[in-house]
């Protein structure tokens, strides 16, 4: 049992717009942290810039609300130099994938033990409504009055392309689903990307409507659980099966299909091919995958850096500055 409650992680009065997905996520994060049980003083929450990056201000942990796009880089230095800390990095879709895209991929590639939260509302809110790198093609916004002419990033694809070992997804308004993936992210040692689908009531209202309420999720989402068959629908009447190189939706009972024919989720599978397919599923033909999609163990950068230091310490004979000087060619003037 954790000795902390949600209240131990709460601070201040959030200033987000009423109804903003950030409110829901904040509460879930505080709840998850209380359940995880790492002390607030051993936790650092580091964000960049954007609406969602205000989040550390409302956490009773150590925190930094930094500059646009650099949260992952700053969190990297934090974790590598002080591995005892539990480091959470919070970014929106602009902060994490546009201006901070380089740091996002490299933190994943290096597998730094960061919990990387990506609050995806597919819009720039703080600058009052421009399209983001996750806005769909054709998206009309203030900076794209005739619709965008570019394709969006799909965060999972970027994470997997950068050799990411953990990817999970939740909807901000679903506290149970969100707390679950946050706890799974914490339990995973290494870079853990959690994509949170959330609404921007002002500039992109309804962007995740199909799964934003409970009823919608029952119809349009699938909760993936490792080791469990991939069933979904209001009465679990649908399932996923593999078909050739792809995935198809089937109805149980039709064409003699039973639960035994349904794919069983394997989040620990090293090969990410099927996990990627699951992560990329979109309505209306497919359910949106929620839960932990990929969770594969791998050596972390911060561990390796510190292990190497210990290794070299025992191999080398010099351990302080005075001894370092003695490793040089020295002569004496008498």
């Amino acid at each position: 049992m954790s000795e902390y409650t949600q209240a131990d992680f709460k601070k201040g009065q959030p200033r987000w717009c009423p109804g903003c997905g950030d409110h829901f996520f904040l509460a879930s994060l505080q709840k998850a942290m209380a359940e995880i049980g790492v002390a607030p003083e051993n936790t650092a929450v580091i964000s960049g810039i954007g609406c969602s990056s205000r989040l550390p201000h409302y956490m009773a942990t150590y925190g930094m609300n930094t500059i646009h796009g650099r949260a992952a880089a700053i969190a990297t230095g934090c974790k590598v130099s002080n591995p005892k800390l539990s480091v959470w990095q919070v970014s929106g879709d602009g902060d994490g994938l546009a201006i901070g895209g380089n740091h996002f991929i490299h933190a994943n590639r290096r597998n730094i033990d960061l919990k990387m939260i990506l609050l995806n509302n597919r819009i720039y809110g703080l600058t009052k409504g421009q399209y983001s790198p996750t806005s769909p093609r054709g998206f009309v916004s203030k900076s794209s009055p005739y619709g965008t002419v570019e394709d969006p990033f799909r965060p999972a694809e970027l994470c997997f392309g950068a050799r990411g070992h953990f990817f999970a997804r939740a909807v901000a308004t679903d506290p149970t689903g969100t707390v679950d993936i946050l706890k799974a992210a914490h339990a995973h040692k290494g870079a853990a990307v959690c994509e949170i689908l959330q609404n921007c009531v002002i500039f992109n209202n309804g962007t995740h409507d199909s799964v934003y309420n409970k009823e919608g999720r029952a119809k349009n989402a699938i909760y993936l659980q490792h080791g469990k068959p991939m069933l979904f629908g209001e009465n679990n009447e649908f399932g996923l099966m593999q078909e050739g190189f792809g995935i198809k939706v089937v109805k149980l009972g039709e064409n003699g299909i039973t639960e035994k024919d349904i794919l069983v989720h394997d989040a620990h599978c090293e090969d990410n091919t099927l996990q990627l397919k699951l992560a990329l599923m979109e309505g209306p033909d497919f359910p949106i995958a929620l839960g932990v999609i990929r969770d594969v163990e791998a050596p972390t950068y911060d561990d390796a850096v510190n292990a190497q230091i210990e290794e070299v310490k025992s191999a080398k004979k010099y351990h302080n500055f005075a001894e370092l000087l003695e490793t040089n060619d020295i002569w004496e003037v008498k």
Partner: protein
Amino acid sequence: MANNLEIKNLDSVAVRFSGDSGDGMQLAGNIFSTISATVGNSISTFPDYPADIRAPQGSLTGVSGFQVHIGAGKVYTPGDKCDVLVAMNAAALKTQYKYAKPGAAIIIDTDCFKKADLEKAQFATEDPIAEMNIDPDRVIACPLSTMVKDCLKDSGMDNKSILKCRNMFALGLVCYLFDRDLNIAFNFLKEKFAKKPGVAEANIKVIQAGYDYGHNTHSSVANVYRIESKEKVKGRYMDITGNKATAYGLIAAAEKAGLRLYLGSYPITPATDVLHELSKHKSLGVTTVQCEDEIAGCASAIGASFAGALGCTSTSGPGICLKSEAMNLAVILELPLVVLDVQRGGPATGLPTKSEQTDLLQALYGRNGETPMPVLAATSPTDCFDAAFDAAKIALEYMTPVVLLTDAYVANGSAAFKLPDLKDYPEIKIPYVPEELKGKWTPYMRNENGVRYWAVPGRQGFTHILGGLEKDNKTGAISTNPENHDLMCRLRAQKIANIQVPDLQVEGDQDAELLIVGFGSTYGHLHAAMDEMRAQGKKVALAQFKYINPLPKNTAEVLKKFKKVVVAEQNLGQFAGYLRMKIDNFVPFQFNEVKGQPFVVSELVENFNQVYNK
């Protein structure tokens, strides 16, 4: 400040070409001396023929050498050791290395360091560099024969003739290292091979290829200059370059402060050697992260400082442009950070391997908002140690980012370094938040120096948030209150102004007619110019600035004491302009040069004499 300095710079460089007697070392050496003589250097050559005229190829007795000393104004004895040793095969390295100065650049043809070559040269292991205890950082190892073959593959020449051109590749590389004009070499070859235009053409092609190789790999030589004191102080010494001394200074400061040293960096000429050096010393707990870009280098160092380490980042001018935003963040976070700028020629990519002092104003002001930042400039290779230590000390004691300016010249230059004893260095007093403030503390509470206390994550009762948004002076909460912002700008500025730096020293004649003023790496040359003028019977003094922001308290008093002041710097007047802004009615003479090359003492003297006689 040292007295009685001896500076050896490009005015005095020795290159030794060595290889098999058939490798054409004499010709390469001759051409190099011809080029140098043509551009006005005095030269002194020293052919060193093999003991055994017909010794077997690759053997120790068959090595031929040719040493060229080039100098401006003086002829140097050819017996001195060389600054660059070209060793075309293993035997040449074995026999000629003894003629190389400590830390000299060694150019080797790796194609002639194969197992058989090593055996012929009587090496015991497969790693001749380690076996001879040569610092691998000083070795320019290139597959020279392969590249020559590739270069001439369409020439129609036979293999033997092609390989005869290897010497020209080495020559091209050396010409790159010393900025020699290849056209002179081309003309020389056209004349020499007037009757064999094909041979001339092949040689010219290979020289160009060697030159391009140097350019593409950012090859550079350390020891392009040295500062040595004629007064021998008793003690134990080692040879050190500016970059290595900088790395050592940071290590020393972290140890003194009891902190982990973290370097976030991205490779860039001429600063990369600092990353290399620090990466070696994991046994001291030094953590280096080669980041995805310059921005992450600086940002991750800020993260490391937030987490309780001494965060540092190293780069050169173009990297500072990229780091500026994060440096700015460190200003408002009020976290310690050392930013090393090993300046090179600009703008943009500019002259990557050359030296300038053109980043001064960028270091001082190249950020948005009111962002005061301490700036230091190291005055010599060994001073890089003290300057790095000081930069870290200021960063930690005043909770601020600090820019340490060196440049390609001081970073690659070397000097005898008297081994420091950390006991002689001052304590670094870190303003950790006192435990008794628990419950009362807010993040922007300040100590008597106006410095914010440091609460490192892990401490119970001190959780807080820092950020790039303006904070309330009292509560630390985000604030856009106009009075508060004005106050915070002033508090941050006052904190930097409070930094204690040593008074400016005046060397030479205290009643001088002319005061020479410089900053950072030009110290040696300006000192030599002063010495020379004083030897001519003139009354001259020198004030060299190491602390640029804040300036020493006695700056105005010193500068106004002298009838004439000349500010000499390797830019178009940035420091002079800065001083004019800081000191009322101060109008100095100026000497400015941006050639990417160190000052030449004789030119300084000539110029200063004109000012003197005005």
